[in-house]
């Protein structure tokens, strides 16, 4: 007949051992080790309920911390500060929680808050989309054409300038549904997380930003 106490001791030892050699799960290893030690110290199965206390909850908190430490490290490696703020906030708050559901709820709320912040930040990338329109404005304004067509070309340039202003206005209306104070800030596009998606030199970006801000009156 199986010795349940021995079976549980072996189970908790193996459970703790999962994280033993993985430096990414240090907190989980410590928490699981504490849980295992509580079990190892029992001489009867019934004792575990009292020795367990909140050790199980602490394992959930530890795993949450480990996952968010990894997430934070990846965001920092990829230079994504807006995304990194989510695990940072979770890590600041995690130790306050003793109930798993409250912890899960907090994590979900921080993730949703983070999604809003990412949307608001990345909405500034309308500048990238408008780059093509700035080029068209330059093309139509500077193309050498017979005098009879110059007004026509200026009208085409004006069309794209108006489109840029419309796009900015539409984006601001949408983003203000998330944050009433949101204002388009194209300068932010020079920060690494946005800049890496523009295949142009810095001086060209500065030049386009200047034209863009003049057109948009920013």
């Amino acid at each position: 007949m199986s010795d349940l106490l021995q079976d549980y001791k072996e189970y908790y030892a193996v459970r703790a051992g999962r994280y033993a050699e993985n430096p990414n799960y240090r907190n989980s290893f410590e928490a699981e080790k504490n849980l295992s030690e509580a079990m190892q110290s029992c001489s009867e199965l019934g004792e575990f309920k009292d020795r367990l206390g909140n050790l199980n909850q602490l394992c959930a908190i530890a795993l949450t911390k480990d996952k968010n430490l990894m997430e934070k490290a990846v965001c920092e490696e990829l230079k994504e500060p807006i995304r990194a703020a989510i695990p940072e906030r979770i890590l600041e708050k995690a130790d306050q929680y003793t109930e798993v559901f409250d912890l899960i709820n907090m994590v979900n709320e921080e993730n949703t808050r983070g999604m809003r912040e990412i949307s608001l930040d990345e909405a500034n990338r309308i500048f990238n989309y408008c780059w093509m329109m700035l080029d068209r404005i330059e093309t139509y304004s500077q193309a050498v054409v017979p005098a009879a067509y110059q007004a026509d070309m200026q009208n085409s340039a004006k069309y794209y300038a108006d489109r840029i202003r419309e796009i900015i206005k539409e984006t601001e209306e949408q983003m203000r549904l998330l944050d009433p104070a949101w204002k388009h800030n194209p300068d932010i596009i020079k920060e690494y997380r946005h800049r890496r998606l523009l295949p142009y030199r810095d001086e060209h970006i500065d030049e386009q930003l200047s034209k863009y801000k003049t057109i948009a009156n920013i």
Partner: protein
Amino acid sequence: MPLDPMMTDALLGAFKNMVQECRDKNMSGEYFDRMCELYNHLEELTRTHDDVMAFNMQVMKEDIYVKISDCYSRLLSAQAQEQQKEVGYDDAALLKQNLNALRDAIKRIEDEKARALQEARNYDPQKAMNDTLDFAYRNEGKKGGLKKGAIDNYGGLDQVKNAGEKDLNAELKARPNAYSNDVEIDTLIRTELYTKPIEDLIKLGEEPGMTYPKYLRIQIEKGLDKAMEGSVAVREGMVFLLGMTEALPASPHHIECEKQKLELFDRLASESKIHVPNSDELGFGIRRIDHHFEPLKTEWYEIKSRWEDLIYDLYIWSLSYCPFAPQIQPWCLYDNPQEAVIRTQKTQPGIFKQHEKLFQKYFGLGFFDIFKHPTYEWEVRYKYIGESQEFTEFLIEKIYPVCIPLQDLPSELIPPRSAMFKDNKEMNPDLDKTILPMVEYYNSVFGEGRWQSKYQMPEKSKSTAAVWNWGEFKYKN
């Protein structure tokens, strides 16, 4: 005005089911009341908003979905714990409960696939089309919708539906599976990849003398718990995606990106004692790979689209001098085609030179560098390039040198240019073959002839030009 019912059913369906499930299980208390309150608030928002984006933004701002899910999870957990308390500690009962939950999971996985297959087989494209037209008609004049009166301008809703039905019937006659996805669902959703590991766990649990803690320990030691995460299915998905990408690759970066993800999977699996990659490490690794390739793909696309504009400028400018230009697109679409033709003749060289200037400014590339650039060779190799080799050489040798602002196309070039159009020499003759590698791959996965039964095959090319011979293309070096 409220959101359209077709939208609200889709948005609220899952949450409505959660509330009903809890009601059916006679749940009550603080979290049940809170969940009902939140759901009622969601319904109210669908009545007070007429713009689905504004609705979604408000729901996101108030975290409504997260809050409903939190209540639901707590209610289910509390009920499970109550049931446990009634039973008290009973090792055999715990083990049985766990195994029953696994059997339920297998049933749910199989039922879900069966449901998806049934839905696919029962899909009625005629009804879907009519529902879509009814939706569009009801929402005319709303943000994101058709202009008010648009459908009436086409003869009214019934007229549009009848015309749509005629087109649909013709399509289904030619391609009976145009709207059928049952084979794709059946092939891609391999339930055994998920259910086999679960069955292995159940077998473990059923071994004689098994106790609950022994069962939990052995599944960790043998990696059976990790196997249940479905990583084999993840790998199959990655292999499929790589195959699709290789069949029609937008750039070498697209292929390399998917290849590296698959290599990462295999490396992490080989480093694991149980041959299952750690899901966190896999997820972070995939993010790193996507992050690395995103700017490379963007740059490739930017360079390609700019030289496409340059070639198009030469194409359209030279075509505008052909005597039949006012009778063909794009000029025949204008109110005054002749005026439009002359506008192109007079303005396109100036536009072309500005495009050329920007191409040089941003990427340090001149006109002749286009043909030496890897983006160009790629487009030729994969038969994406629209122009034939001889037409391209004509544009390079004859049209480019004379595309000068304030100057017209020399009259002696008009006959050969007209001939290029009239003799069907402009287009790449292999454009009807571009899709073939995708057809071959798709059919290798879903069965011979499957692609053709769903999608329109390109018409046979009418181009009389010779096929591209990259080796003999003099401008590639």
